[in-house]
C-alpha cells in the first residue's frame, strides 16, 4: 500500500511514488543503439512477447551532484517534473498516461535520475512526446512548489525518520564517506529540504537536463526503426547544452574504523551492519568488480552460502546473515555485511563471529568448488534476463548512467565466468580493511532504571 524498499538497497533510490530502482544482474539483452546529433544516446531492446513498451529517460545527474546546502534538490526536481511543462498542466502528465492505459513513475539515486512509462505499443509516440516536452520545457510555479516541498518532507518522514534502521543507515553513510557526497542522503537532510526553492530546482534543471546528458531506452514491442523515427521527431529538435563535467570530492585516506550506535525504543531486535568502501565498475581498483560479485555470492548467495551456513545453521547465533556488494556507482562502491542475532545472543557475539569468518576467508581463501558454484549461479541468472520487459532497461540505464557501456553489460556473463579463485582472494584482501569501514549497531533503547 505504501512504498516498500529492500532494506539493503534503501539508501539507493528515492522515488516519486515507489522506488522502482532495483539493481539487477545484467545479461545478454541484445540491444541496438544510436546517438542523435544533439547527443542523446538511444538504446532499443526489442521484446515482442506482448504489445507493450517501456520508455525510460535517464539523466546522468543525481543527488551527489546537489549543490552544497541544497541536499535533496535532484530528488525535489524529479517530483517537480510532474508539476507542469510546456502545454501540460500540473499533474496532467500522469493523468494523460493513465487515461491511455499506462503507468508512469520516476526515481532518483546518487548518480542518476530516471523517468519511465509503460504503455500499449501503439501509445509509444504519446509518451515520447510528453517526455521530450519536459526535457526542454519544464514550467513550474510557486503554487505547486510549496506543497511539493511538504510532500518530499513527508516522504522523508515515511522512509527514514519513522524507521530506525533507515536512520542508522543514513548515519552510517555519513560516517563511511568522510568527504564524498555519497555521505549525504539522496532525499536530503530535512533542514536543507525545508529551504529548497523553485529557483534552485530550475537552476539544477537548466544545468543538467539536456539531451547530451541523457539516455533514452525503449524496451518492448517496437523496432529500432520505429524508435529512430519517433526520436528524430520529438527528441532531436531539443538543443544540446553545455554540461559541466561531473567532478566530485574524493575521499581522503581513511585511518580509523568508525562505529555508529543507534538506540531507539522503536527497536526490539538488534541488528549489526558493517559497510566497507569498495571498488565499483568504474572507480578504484576496478579489476575486482566482478570477483567481488562472486565473493558476495559465496558469502551470501543463499542458504548454503558461508554466512548463512555458519552463523544461522551451524553456530545458531543469528536469525539472518548477509553480505551485499554494489558495483554500479559512478564513484565508490560499497560492500556491506551483517545480520540479526537470535534474541538471546548479544550483538557483540555476532560481530565477533562475522570477524572470524572474514579472518578465515583472508587466511584460507575460497575453494575452487565455491567459485565454480557461485559463477554458475550468477551466470544462470542471466538466462532469466529476457523474462521481464523492464529488467534490460534497468540494467542498461544503470550502467550507462554510471560510466559503463552497453558492451560491458552484454559481456557480464563472460566476465563473471572468467573470475578465478585467486582473483576472489585478492578482491577480499583489497576490500576487507577495517579502517575503510563503518560498523552500525541498531539497539533497543535502554530501559529506564527503577528506583
Amino acid at each position, binding site marked *: *500500500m*505504501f*512504498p516498500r524498499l529492500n532494506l539493503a538497497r534503501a539508501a539507493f533510490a528515492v522515488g*516519486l*511514488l515507489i522506488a522502482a530502482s532495483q539493481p539487477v544482474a545484467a545479461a545478454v539483452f541484445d540491444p541496438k543503439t544510436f546517438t542523435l546529433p544533439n547527443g542523446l544516446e538511444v538504446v532499443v531492446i526489442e*521484446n*515482442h*512477447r*506482448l504489445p*507493450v513498451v517501456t520508455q525510460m529517460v535517464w539523466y546522468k545527474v543525481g543527488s551527489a551532484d546537489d549543490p552544497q546546502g541544497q541536499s535533496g534538490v535532484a530528488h525535489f526536481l524529479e517530483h517537480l517534473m*510532474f508539476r507542469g511543462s510546456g502545454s501540460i498542466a*500540473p*499533474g496532467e502528465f*500522469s*493523468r494523460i498516461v*493513465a*487515461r*491511455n*492505459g*499506462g503507468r508512469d513513475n520516476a526515481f532518483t539515486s546518487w548518480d542518476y535520475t530516471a523517468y519511465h512509462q*509503460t*504503455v*500499449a505499443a501503439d*501509445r509509444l509516440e504519446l509518451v515520447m512526446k510528453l517526455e521530450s516536452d519536459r526535457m526542454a520545457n519544464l514550467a513550474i510555479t510557486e503554487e505547486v512548489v*510549496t*506543497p*511539493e*516541498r*511538504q*510532500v518530499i*518532507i*513527508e516522504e522523508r*518522514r*515515511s522512509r527514514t525518520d*519513522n524507521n530506525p534502521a533507515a536512520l542508522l543507515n543514513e548515519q552510517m553513510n555519513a560516517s563511511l564517506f568522510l568527504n564524498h557526497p555519497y555521505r549525504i542522503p539522496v532525499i536530503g537532510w530535512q533542514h536543507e529540504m525545508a529551504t529548497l526553492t523553485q529557483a534552485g530546482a530550475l537552476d539544477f534543471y537548466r544545468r543538467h537536463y539536456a539531451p547530451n546528458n541523457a539516455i533514452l531506452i525503449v524496451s518492448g514491442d517496437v523496432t529500432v526503426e520505429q524508435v529512430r523515427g519517433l526520436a528524430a521527431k520529438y527528441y532531436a529538435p531539443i538543443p544540446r547544452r553545455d554540461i559541466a563535467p561531473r567532478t566530485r570530492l574524493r575521499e581522503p585516506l581513511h585511518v580509523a574504523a568508525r562505529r555508529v550506535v543507534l538506540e531507539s*525504543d*522503536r*527497536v*526490539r*531486535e538488534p541488528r549489526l551492519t558493517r559497510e566497507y568502501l569498495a571498488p565499483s565498475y568504474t572507480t578504484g581498483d576496478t579489476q575486482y568488480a566482478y570477483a567481488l560479485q562472486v565473493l558476495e555470492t559465496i558469502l551470501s548467495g*543463499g*542458504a*548454503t552460502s558461508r554466512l548463512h551456513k555458519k552463523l*544461522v*545453521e551451524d553456530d*545458531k547465533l543469528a*536469525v539472518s546473515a548477509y553480505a551485499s556488494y554494489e558495483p554500479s556507482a559512478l564513484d565508490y562502491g560499497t560492500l556491506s555485511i551483517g545480520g540479526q542475532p*537470535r*534474541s538471546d545472543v548479544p550483538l557483540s557475539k555476532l560481530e565477533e563471529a562475522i570477524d572470524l569468518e572474514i579472518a578465515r576467508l583472508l587466511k584460507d581463501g575460497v575453494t575452487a568448488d565455491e567459485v565454480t*558454484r557461485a559463477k554458475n*549461479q550468477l551466470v*544462470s*541468472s542471466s*538466462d*532469466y534476463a*529476457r*523474462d*521481464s*520487459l*523492464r529488467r534490460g532497461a534497468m540494467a542498461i540505464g544503470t550502467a550507462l548512467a554510471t560510466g559503463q557501456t552497453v558492451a560491458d553489460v552484454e559481456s557480464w556473463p563472460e566476465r563473471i565466468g572468467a573470475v578465478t579463485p585467486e582473483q576472489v582472494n585478492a578482491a577480499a584482501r583489497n576490500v576487507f580493511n577495517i579502517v575503510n569501514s563503518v560498523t552500525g549497531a541498531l539497539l533497543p533503547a535502554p530501559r529506564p532504571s527503577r528506583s
Partner: protein
Amino acid sequence: MRRISPVIAAAALYAGAILSFAAPAHAVAIERVVSAKGVEAWLVQDRSVPVIALQFAFHGGSALDPVGKEGLSNIVTGLLDEGAGNFDSQEFQRRREDSSVSLGFDSSVDSVGGNMRTLKRNAETGFDLLRLALNAPRFDASAVEKVKTQTRAWLSGAAENPRRIAGRVLSRTAFGDDPYGRSAEGTRRSVENLTTADFQAYVKQHFVRDRLVIGVVGDITPEELKPRLDAVFGDLPASAGPISLPMVTPALAGQVFVIDKKLPQSVVTFGQAGLSRKDPDYYIAYVMNQAFGGGGLTSRLMEEVREKRGLAYGVNTSLAPYDRAALITGGVATQNDRVGESIDIIRKEWAKLRDEGLTEEELADTKTYLTGSFLTNIDSTARMASLLVGIQLEELGIDYMDKRNSFIEAVTLADVRRVAQRLLDPTKLTFVVVGQPKGVTATATAPQIED
C-alpha cells in the same frame, strides 16, 4: 512466508492481482490441461524465453489455523523447503541453487500455496524439488527450531512497526475472535507451542486435490506438463471435505483509535465494510475505488491530500474482499501536527463520493486506464502464472480475460452513484492512528494486540 497483515494481504491479492493483470484474448490463450490422474492446470505456452513458471494454491489459508495454533499455516510454508525426502535442508537448498530453480511458499488468509520457476533445461530438477517439498517435507528438528526462532524474532520486530500495529488493530476490531481478526503469522506464544506433529497434520489435512488450483506459463507443452502434474500433485489426498467457516460482518462502527508511539509521523489505517468479490456490483465498486483512491498519482484522494496540500507522500484505498467478509481499506501517513487535517479531508471526501459519485471525466479516464493497462503488468511468466491462479481461486472462469474489459466498460455514472450510496458510510469509517497525533481525539480504546 507472507508476512503482512490480513488487511493488506487481501488488498494486494485481490484488487490488484486479478483486475489489473488481465490480458486480452488475442495475446493470451489459456489451455485447460488435465493429467492422467486427473490433476487440472491452466497453461499459457510461451516459447519466447526458455523458462517455466508454475504457481499453485489450496483454498484454506491461515483462516483455518486452529485457536491457539495461530501462525501454523505461515510456519509450514517456511518449512517446506527446509529438507524433504532424502535431502536435508542444506542438500535440498544446494540442489535448488545449483539448478537456478526458485521455489517459494506462502500463505494468505484464504489460501496457501507456492511457486516454482525453472529454466527449461533444469525442469526435471525443478518439478522434482517441488514434488518433494509438497509430498515429503521432513520437518527436521533443527529446521523447525530455526524457523520458529526466526518467526518469533520477526514478530517481536513487527510489534514496533506502525503499519503492522495499525493493520492488526483494524483487523482485530473488524473481526474480533474470528480467524480474520487474529494474527496470520501467529503470536510469539502460539508459535512457540507449535510442534512437528502439527506441521505433519497440516500437510495431510490441507494439501488436498479438491482445494487445489494450478497455473503454468512458459516453454512447456500440455503433453510435457501432464506427467509433471501427476508427479507433483497426483498422489495428494483427494479431499478433506468442505471448508466450513461462517460469513462474518466487520464490526467497524466509525471508531477512532490512537496508539501512542513516539514517531515524527503518524501512520493511519482506515476502513469500513466492503463488498464481496462475487457481488454483482463488484466491478462498479472497483472502478469507483480506482478513481477515488486506487490509482497512483491520479486519484481524487491523492489530488486532495498530496498534490493540493502536501499532507502526505501517499494516500490510497483498496477493496479488500476475503472469502467470508469484505472491507474497503486505506492508509495515509502525515506529520503529527497535521494528521487531523488528513483525516478530516478523507472523511469529507468519503461523504462527497457517497453523495455525488464520480464526475463524467473521472469515470471515463478510469475506464480507459483499467481497460488499457491490463497488459502492462504481465511483466514475466511468474506474474502470468499468478494471475491464472487468482482467476481460479475466485472462480471467475477460463474466459475471464476475454470478458473482463466489458464488465468495466459497462459501468455508468448512475451505477457508481447507486453503489456509492449503498456501500459508503462515513459514520462507519474507522481510523487507527499510530503516533502522537495532534487534533485527533480517540473515541474508543484499542483492542489489546498480543505480539
